[in-house]
């Protein structure tokens, strides 16, 4: 594989990590966050600026960056998650807008809208990204299959009923939001490592929205669907870069195309492409059996 192809795969993997972060928040616990890009911003800038100015190893500053994101998520969650879901969506969105302007405001450190590019080169970045993607997917899968996942699905379908069975909805939501934001934060750092430059535009509101769109396209309750959608919807438009429509590269139209896909999904397949299905050996075996049965006839 050449560098270009490796780059595409890395981008897609980072997209998967971002979407899995949103999956935990939105699909498990039913909170519609529109500010996940903001957590990517916080951790990425934190990590690389600290690494540069204090000369600390990047692994340490990455942990600090993620911790900073987690703290911000906690502060937002405490007043907001007691209220109606709409507040959460609006506040996370406001938070995203605020983060972009903070980056511009602190131009002295962040280099403003031009972008911060003093990011050290990390050698095995490809394998780091692949490894972390696998880890994050495993993490989310384990979480979904644990008691926390069950309680989340319960509170998502019926908050009042969940409370009546001892699920501490408020606390669980806060924890889930913080964890999901940590994963977004991780995606932000990897994005910086891969591209060697971070700009406020790169982490705009559109990115937060794009991740939600990927998620719903793949399937509202399916981690498999979310991961596949996160990967493919990032990859396909990149490979179609040279195709033109109305004299404009198809790449430019990608958001429009995503949106049309989502409108189709909402209208015709409201649970996303995979709905609640998950990949497992058992479903695969089930598919085979069905095929055999059909052949047997």
């Amino acid at each position, binding site marked *: 594989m050449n560098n270009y192809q490796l780059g595409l795969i890395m981008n897609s993997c980072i997209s998967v990590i971002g979407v899995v972060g949103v999956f935990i928040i939105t699909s498990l616990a039913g909170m519609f966050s529109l500010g996940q890009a903001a957590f990517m911003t916080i951790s990425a800038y934190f990590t690389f600026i600290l690494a540069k100015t204090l000369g600390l190893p990047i692994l340490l500053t990455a942990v600090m960056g993620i911790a900073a994101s987690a703290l911000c998520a906690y502060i937002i969650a405490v007043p907001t998650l007691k209220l109606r879901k709409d507040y959460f969506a609006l506040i996370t969105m406001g938070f995203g807008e605020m983060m972009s302007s903070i980056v511009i405001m602190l131009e002295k450190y962040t280099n403003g809208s031009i972008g911060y590019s003093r990011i050290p080169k990390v050698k095995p970045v490809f394998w780091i990204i692949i490894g972390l993607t696998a880890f994050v997917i495993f993490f989310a899968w*384990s979480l979904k299959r644990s*008691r*926390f996942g069950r309680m989340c699905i*319960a509170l*998502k379908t019926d908050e009042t009923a969940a409370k*009546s*069975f*001892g699920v*501490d909805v408020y606390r669980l939501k806060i924890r889930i939001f913080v*964890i999901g934001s940590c994963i977004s934060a991780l995606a932000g750092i990897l994005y910086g490592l891969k591209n060697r430059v971070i700009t406020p535009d790169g982490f705009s509101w559109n990115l937060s929205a794009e991740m939600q769109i990927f998620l719903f396209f793949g399937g509202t309750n399916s981690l498999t669907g979310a991961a596949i959608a996160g990967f493919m919807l990032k990859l396909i438009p990149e490979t179609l870069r040279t195709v033109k429509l109305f004299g404009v590269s198809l790449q430019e139209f990608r958001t429009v195309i995503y949106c049309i896909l989502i409108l189709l999904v909402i209208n015709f397949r409201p649970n996303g492409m995979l709905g609640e299905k998950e990949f497992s050996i058992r479903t695969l075996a089930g598919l085979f059996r069905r095929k055999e049965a059909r052949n047997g006839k």
Partner: protein
Amino acid sequence: MENSRLVLRCNDICMDFGGVKAVDHFSMAVSPSTTTGLIGPNGAGKTTIFNVFSRIYRQTSGSLELDGVNVDNRGQVEVARMGLTRTFQNIRLFSGLSVLDNVKVSLDHSAGYNMLDAVLHLPSRQREERRIGQRALDTLKLLKLDQYAQSHATSLPYGLQRRVEIARALVTEPKVLLLDEPAAGLNPEEVFQLVDFLKQIRELYPQLALLVIEHRMDLIMSLCDCLYVQNFGRTIAQGKPAQVQCDPVVLAAYLGEE
């Protein structure tokens, strides 16, 4: 004196909704091992009383004690963990989960492993998952629902869903179980099965205090030891079923003034 210990007790509970008194000075005392019925016409405030008991609403005035502990300032989650569970008038199972998982949710808050154990698949996770899985399955077996354990909860017929909902509430072995119109929406055959089912529960969980809201007199009469009759938020009669049945005030409320 063990028998006279009260598991649920409320004094002069009132509940206002913007000037409308949904519950007006309601008092009640419930001992373990009893079945109490709450009857009355629509809009008499029965469900509101249940909602106050399970802390979905905070009462406007009055006090509420659960197992000797004042719970006026406790929330829904806390009273649930203290041993008060309920079912809902319109069945509210968690649609994304299987029957077994629905029952497990009740136990999940008590499972002894944290998020780190969960994502790293540490032994404590395995052990606790096995424990609550077994306990949930035992309850389902006890209530003869184990054959549906893996089915999608909301794809079952209505009567079965109702029983799963009761199983979900029973799995923690609560002290008080509130049943809000368990026969609502069931056909006669299913009602018949439900009565049997509730009698079974009575035997299987001897310490349990059961509170039932119901419209169907046959069901109430065959189950309850004690009845409270509500009308327009007030208690108009209380006592043994046979006694209440021929109370003229009750007859008037049900059949209209003559």
